[in-house]
């Protein structure tokens, strides 16, 4: 067979392949570049940025759980100004698509962040994090409130022509309702899922293992939930989906695309195997060759139910 066309198009955002590194699991790209060739990947999603720098939550921030981990990093980030000055120069040099993830405590802050970053040519799309479970003032409430998600999408739409991806919370009854609101308000795509709310306690001290008390659950443990949420969106709403949650290898990635993802992000696996993205890409390529799939996008939503 000839070469496989690995490129995908997500609501106007073109990627050379569907492999994205998830927000918060690659920093701003420099450290992981020691272990992997970022140029090969479809794209990188930055750690969530807020208007001002954030120190993040006090330790302990992470804990391992069965086939998963909890984190409450608290959106530690350098803020948009420093990001532009100090991080963009490195990211510019990488031949991969840069998606900027934004987290904020108010609709106005979202708008302002996007407004400031919009002029940066290197940034090809915005992923709006309405679903971080670890920040008290904002995140969680937005992510579980249909009106808020609609409003944020609409207001952000007004300040940028670049593709807008809304990153949805899984901690809701019907995630497809949120995807509908995103679509109705001009969002180009959704990404799903962010982490599930979880906790863990030390039975001797009776204290939470994570200082923030609750954290976000990620990793293989949540894969079945992520797949079900992506499938629910796919079956109900016509909007491109970026699938996230528990992907460890190319087989998981294929599964995620089958249930409806046009592209996917890998998170936790980067901590264990920082070269996972490239390995998954190679695995996808072989899978397509062996199964005579010419365009990888043909896998998207190809479930047989």
């Amino acid at each position, binding site marked *: 067979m000839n070469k496989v066309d690995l490129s995908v198009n997500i609501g106007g955002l073109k990627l050379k392949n569907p492999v994205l590194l998830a927000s918060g699991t690659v920093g701003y790209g420099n*450290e992981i570049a020691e272990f992997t060739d970022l140029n090969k990947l479809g794209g990188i999603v930055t750690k969530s940025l807020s208007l001002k720098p954030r120190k993040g939550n006090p330790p302990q*921030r992470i804990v391992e759980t069965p*086939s998963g981990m909890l984190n409450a990093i608290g959106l*530690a980030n350098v803020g948009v100004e420093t990001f532009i000055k100090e991080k963009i120069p490195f990211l510019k040099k990488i031949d991969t698509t840069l998606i900027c993830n934004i987290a904020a405590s108010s609709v106005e802050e979202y708008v302002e962040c996007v407004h400031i970053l919009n002029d940066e040519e290197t940034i090809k799309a915005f992923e709006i994090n309405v679903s971080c479970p670890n920040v008290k003032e904002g995140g969680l409430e937005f992510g579980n409130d249909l009106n808020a998600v609609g409003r944020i999408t609409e207001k952000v739409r007004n300040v940028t022509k670049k593709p807008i991806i809304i990153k949805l919370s899984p901690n809701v009854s019907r995630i497809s309702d949120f995807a509908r609101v995103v679509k109705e308000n001009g969002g180009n795509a959704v990404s799903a899922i962010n982490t599930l709310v979880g906790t863990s306690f030390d039975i001797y001290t009776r204290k939470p293992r994570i200082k923030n008390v609750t954290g976000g659950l990620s990793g293989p443990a949540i894969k079945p939930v992520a797949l079900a949420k992506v499938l629910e969106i796919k079956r109900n709403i016509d909007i491109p989906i970026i699938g996230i949650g528990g992907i460890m290898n190319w087989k998981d990635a294929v599964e995620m695309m089958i249930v409806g993802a046009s592209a996917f992000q890998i998170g936790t696996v980067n*901590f264990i195997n920082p070269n996972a993205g490239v390995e998954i890409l190679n695995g996808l390529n072989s899978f397509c060759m062996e199964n005579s799939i010419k365009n990888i996008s043909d896998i998207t939503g190809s479930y047989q139910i």
Partner: protein
Amino acid sequence: MYIEKAFVESVERLDEETYLMKVFSPAIACIAKPGQFCNIKVSENDFPLLRRPFSICNVEGDYAFFLFDIHGEGTKILSLKKNGDTVELLGPLGKGFIYDDDYETAVIVAGGLGTAPFPFLIKNISDEKNIICLVGGRSKKQIITYGLKNIAIATDNGSEGFKGTVIDLLKEEVKNISKKKFRIFACGPNAMLKELQKYSIENNFDCQISVECAMACGFGICQGCPVDSANGESYLLVCKDGPVFNANEVKL
């Protein structure tokens, strides 16, 4: 930094609770520095999920050594490794000890498994310097002296050596060496490091501490391993900015 699939040469049981693993890892062995660590994938499947961080205990030619006890599932799996099995090392990680400059005596303070990074350090400290090792534990059982020299022991219950904490012992020892220019290198439980930190800051001692905390990635991408900077205004990352810090750099 490398990801290196390494063959296990041996896992030796040093005493009831302590194991020494020797692995063939030429790339990492070649560039490792005392005080650095590796984040180890202990199995070939996804259980346990995360890597486990271990200090590089020693390096001999193409071989790296790791000293550990059985803590949970990860270290249990390690303890069962046999010649020919593999582990996957990611490393060497972090900043090691600074030991090559101007001082006369290296005072090594180790609590329990805090002994781990010191065989490698001791080997690398110039012969012109003196080395004394203070080793502490709750009782005789917790005393690990592998690869140390010139050893004085402290046990909380007095079952061996000095009765008291290793920091109490340090206070005694300092009387004998205080005229010489010395540097303290310490590793052990947080409580011990805290006490040491207080003592050494009060006395303005030259002191480096190796800090432990929960980690996911080990190389700076997860932000999971913060430690308060001394002024409390920002966080440092134990994996990248440490694990060795100057005692006055961080707030434990």
